[in-house]
């Protein structure tokens, strides 16, 4: 809402408050002033001049030589505007004046003739092109005859105005009107308010009911409709001051009738509509719901398709306006209009909102109806408009209004006590602190012992309960007076849950391991939403969740894996020559069990990593280690070692992964994730080079993890190691043999590690040598050689039996 400071002065005394101070006070009291704009910088040297004579320039056809009386002197000015003429009162920038566009006015010679100033257009005086009325958009501006010669134009054109831009939130529709703002400012400044003149002298010889009848078929959507008749109006420009205020408020003046309805809309916050009575098409206004397949042409010359959810104003035959949104083209007020049907009505906000949403039409009117108008101002606004039409359009106002009135105009009352207010605020206000705020807001109240019963004016639709009054009291009294306290009484030990702690621990580990955390979008494209699904994590089908109306194809579905968006991050960096990257992310994936989503999806927390380029790079030492499968696996193994969980890795094939370089990670026999190389074709899809990824379902980890590990004594007896190298068939996984050794060796064998893998020269075709180191240890005694030997022999024998291997000599 744009609020003209000068206009506001008509209702509240602003003598002791500058626009800046006022803006600050309004903001601090609850309605944010987003900016202040001055129409034009102050200039003393631009005044009203009277064009005494106007002749053609002797040497230039398109220039005029004018003699202009500017009060104490007469200036010879050359003017190029085609509409300049003798007898006009115009805006003259005298030598020394500076125009808002920066132009400095000096004495000059044009084609040999002296020119001592400039006759200005409104644009040149600093008014915004888009608000300048069509009739004065071309050429210089001509003042009404009553303008006084020599008077500075600043005030005449309201160029000294400051425009406050108020950000009015949904709870304060009252501030979408000058009167609403005036009440607010009056309360803030503790000043009285001056209400507009609603005096009206009607023409008793005209009876509105002879001209019009009103019938409402949809009373719940339109509980009040008032039809005013104004005859014999004279269409002409509205008075200068009104045009000035409209332009300052961001509305372009059209003619006196339209301007007056707009002026009252801004002043009262009540939208009005003026129909050309003679074009209305009947003597009856019928308000009803639209019909299927019904159409109408709105003021903007668009044909609108209607349905039963649209409230429409009709002439009994066809729609003439979309109620509260926009009028129809046929009954528009034009230069030829002489008789008016003026509508002042109350339309239900939900109904108007519906039509706005459906048509996409949003107007000054619809905005106010949508948010709610003051039921007690509807008719008054109509009267105010009639009074202005009488004054500025010479209209004859009919002696009565034709109305249908089922509108609830009663005031709510809210009961408060000072004690309760203090209890909620944590303050010690006196009762008079409370009642003084109510008086400043012009809320009537009565007292009943401790109770203060507040009558809430209907302009304040946002106030209905104790807390609303509480807010009024503290916002006007001032939040700065609130003390600083901390909740007393009940105490709990705050903290993180085990699962939250574990997440932080995982972040600690991965960060220390050299990975950088990313944060990517949960929404990805439809194709990527179903990529990189962990094999056999769940037997049930997993469907992605799609948005009903995505903003773009890139962000249309919730992810089932973190990897696709992480690959996109790699791509972004690689494209910027950042080639060595190691990233991790912890975030949710969204699994639906229904193809057509109805229920909330399952949200599983995942941790994922993506690595590409070099893992180590010590260039001058020629030590370079590219990321490979075992780097990625090492990070995963380290993570589970850190979490003290035993996992196994099983060769697997999955879409989007290298068929020979991917393992499913199993915890207690259940797949909980995978690690491996991204399939080269998929990598190409994402425009990344050789890339390794892992992804783990953390919900499965949380399910088994114990946060506090128990203490194990440090062994006091020596351990014994034994090495064995098995010659195995190439396709026997070394890890399987390792697992079997462990199985056979327990409890004496504490650890089995692989320290050498060999394939190639001196090795039988299709075979490999894998060397294992076994660590024997007993926590309670020193082991004897022969028991270690016996176990060692048993292991060799059983492994050879099971895997068809033999020991390398």
């Amino acid at each position, binding site marked *: 809402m744009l609020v003209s400071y000068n206009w506001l002065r008509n209702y509240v005394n602003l003598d002791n408050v500058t626009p800046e101070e006022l803006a600050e006070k309004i903001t*601090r*009291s*609850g309605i944010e002033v987003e900016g202040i704009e001055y129409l034009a910088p102050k200039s003393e040297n631009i005044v009203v001049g009277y064009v005494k004579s106007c002749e053609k320039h002797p040497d230039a056809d398109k220039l005029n030589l004018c003699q202009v009386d500017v009060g104490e002197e007469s200036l010879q000015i050359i003017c190029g505007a085609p509409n300049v003429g003798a007898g006009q009162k115009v805006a003259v920038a005298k030598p020394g004046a500076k125009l808002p566009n920066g132009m400095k006015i000096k004495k000059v010679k044009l084609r040999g003739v002296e020119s001592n100033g400039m006759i200005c257009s409104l644009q040149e005086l600093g008014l915004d092109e888009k608000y300048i009325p069509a009739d004065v958009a071309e050429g210089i501006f001509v003042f009404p005859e009553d303008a006084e010669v020599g008077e500075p134009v600043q005030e005449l054109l309201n160029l000294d105005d400051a425009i406050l831009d108020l950000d009015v*939130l*949904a*709870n304060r529709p009252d501030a979408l009107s000058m009167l609403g703002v005036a009440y607010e400012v009056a309360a803030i400044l503790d000043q009285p308010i001056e209400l507009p003149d609603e005096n009206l002298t009607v023409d008793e010889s005209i009876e509105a009911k002879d001209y019009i009848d009103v019938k409402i078929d949809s009373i719940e959507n339109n509980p009040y409709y008032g039809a005013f008749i104004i005859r014999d109006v004279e269409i002409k420009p509205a008075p200068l001051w009104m045009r000035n205020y409209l332009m300052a408020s961001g509305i372009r003046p059209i003619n006196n009738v339209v301007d007056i309805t707009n002026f009252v809309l801004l002043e009262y916050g009540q939208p009005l509509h003026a129909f050309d009575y003679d074009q209305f098409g009947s003597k009856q206004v019928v308000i009803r719901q639209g019909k299927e397949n019904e159409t109408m042409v709105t003021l903007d010359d668009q044909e609108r398709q209607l349905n039963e959810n649209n409230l429409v104003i009709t002439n009994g035959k066809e729609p003439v306006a979309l109620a509260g949104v926009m009028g129809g083209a046929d009954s528009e007020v034009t230069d030829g209009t002489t008789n008016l049907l003026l509508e002042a009505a109350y339309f239900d906000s*939900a109904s108007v*909102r519906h039509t706005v949403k459906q048509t996409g039409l949003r107007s000054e009117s619809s905005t106010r109806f949508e*948010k709610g108008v003051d039921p007690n101002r509807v008719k008054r606004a109509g009267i105010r408009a009639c009074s202005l039409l009488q004054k500025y359009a010479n209209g004859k106002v009919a002696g009565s209004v034709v109305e249908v009135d089922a509108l609830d105009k009663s005031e709510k009352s809210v009961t408060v006590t000072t004690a309760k207010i203090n*209890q909620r605020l*944590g303050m010690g206000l006196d009762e008079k602190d409370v009642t003084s705020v109510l008086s400043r807001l012009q809320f009537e109240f009565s007292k009943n012992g401790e109770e203060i019963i507040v009558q809430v004016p209907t302009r304040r639709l946002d106030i209905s*309960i*104790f807390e609303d009054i*509480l*807010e009024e009291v*503290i*916002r006007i009294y001032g*939040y*700065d007076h*609130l*003390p600083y*306290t*901390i*909740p*007393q*009484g009940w105490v*709990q030990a*705050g*903290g*993180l*849950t085990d699962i*939250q702690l574990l997440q*932080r621990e995982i*972040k600690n580990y*991965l*960060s*220390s391991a050299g990975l*950088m*955390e*990313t*944060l990517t979008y*949960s*929404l990805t494209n439809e194709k990527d939403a179903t990529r990189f699904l962990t094999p056999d994590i769940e037997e049930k089908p997993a469907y992605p969740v799609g*948005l*009903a*109306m995505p903003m773009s194809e890139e962000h249309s579905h919730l992810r089932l894996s973190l990897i696709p968006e992480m690959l996109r*991050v790699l791509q*972004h*960096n690689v494209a910027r020559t950042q080639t060595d*990257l*190691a*990233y991790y992310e912890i975030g*949710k994936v969204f699994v639906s069990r229904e193809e057509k989503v*109805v229920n*909330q*999806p399952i*949200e599983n927390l995942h941790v994922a990593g993506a690595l590409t380029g070099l893992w*180590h790079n*010590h260039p*001058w030492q020629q030590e370079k280690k590219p990321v490979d499968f075992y780097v990625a696996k090492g990070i995963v193994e380290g993570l589970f070692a850190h979490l003290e969980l035993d996992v196994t890795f099983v060769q697997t094939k999955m879409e989007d992964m290298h068929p020979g370089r991917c393992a499913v990670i199993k915890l207690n026999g259940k797949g909980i994730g995978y690690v491996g190389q991204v399939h080269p074709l998929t990598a190409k899809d994402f425009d990344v080079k050789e890339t390794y990824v892992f992804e783990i379902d953390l919900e499965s980890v949380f399910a088994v993890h114990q946060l506090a590990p128990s203490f194990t004594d440090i062994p006091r007896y020596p351990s014994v190691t034994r090495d064995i190298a098995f010659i195995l068939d190439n396709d026997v996984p070394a890890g399987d043999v390792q697992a079997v050794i462990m199985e056979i060796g327990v409890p004496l064998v504490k650890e089995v590690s692989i320290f050498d893998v060999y394939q190639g020269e001196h090795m039988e075709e299709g075979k490999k040598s894998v060397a294992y180191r076994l660590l024997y240890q007993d926590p309670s005694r020193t082991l004897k050689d022969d028991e270690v030997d016996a176990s060692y022999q048993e292991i060799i024998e059983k492994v050879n039996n099971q895997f068809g291997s033999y020991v390398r000599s």
Partner: protein
Amino acid sequence: MKEELQAIESEALAAVEEAEDSQALQEMKVKYLGKKGSLTTVLRGMGKLSKEERPVIGELANNVRASITEALEAKTEKLEREALDKKLETETIDVTLPGNPVHVGGRHLLTSIMEEIEDLFIGMGYEVKEGPEVETDYYNFEKLNLPKNHPARDMQDTFFITNELLLRTQTSPVQARTMEAYQGNRPIKMICPGKVYRRDTDDATHSHQFRQIEGLVVDKNITLSDLKGTLDVFAKKMFGKDRKIRLRPSFFPFTEPSVEMDVSCKVCNGEGCSVCKQTGWIEILGGGMVHPRVLEMSGYDSTIYSGFAFGMGQERIAMLKYGVNDIRHFYTNDVRFLSQYHQA
């Protein structure tokens, strides 16, 4: 004999002093102390001595042996040290060459901010609650005093999945769920951090996905002053102990009264500058007293219980605290951005 022994000693000590390598010392050890060495040779004549002389010469002989041995050891050690020094000298490297780089990872800036805020409130006795990101209309809106067709719903553009399912536009549904779970019969002190989503076109100040952190305290006799005091603690911890806060009235459907909190601008110290748009204040977060309908809907008797709630965007906090100028940086994950703020 005494003279002989003294001669051997001085000869040996001089020789040891002269020796240039361990080889020479070894030879000297044999020459003076060995089985056929000069000392042994002299001592063989001990038998010829009188009973009185024997112990005197014996002690002297031992002293000479000890003295020579000591000299030999000292010289050996000295020579070894010299040899080592020489060897080490040859091992000199260029210390100005770069060391092996260590791959440093780290948390995302927003995670660091989030954990910092979490820890601050944990210290004040808050628990950390989480909830689903795909929410129902009921918890995201209705339970928060935003019935269907409420005009304030237009304030947030929502990603709907179905008529009833949506991506949460705020973390407040976690508050609603917590209140409901506690069934109106115990106090609450909680924060809820998490991702939220809105239909915004991504630009320098908007992101269709961002993170919030909200707080809720419900108890008997919670006051607006308690909110102000709590936010003051937060602001001073987050932005510096010299910062001041102020509250301005605002509007949120789930709080009444509602406030916005500004923090005094640290760039200009409240004098006014381009960062704070000349106001001296920077808007940080919104909050207010929990609307009685919100309490009632979740089973809290609003005549007994009152509460405050507040909420902020983590990105905004991070941007203000670290001077990040574009919200998209958080989601682009450019390594050159991430590594500026890493913190293990």
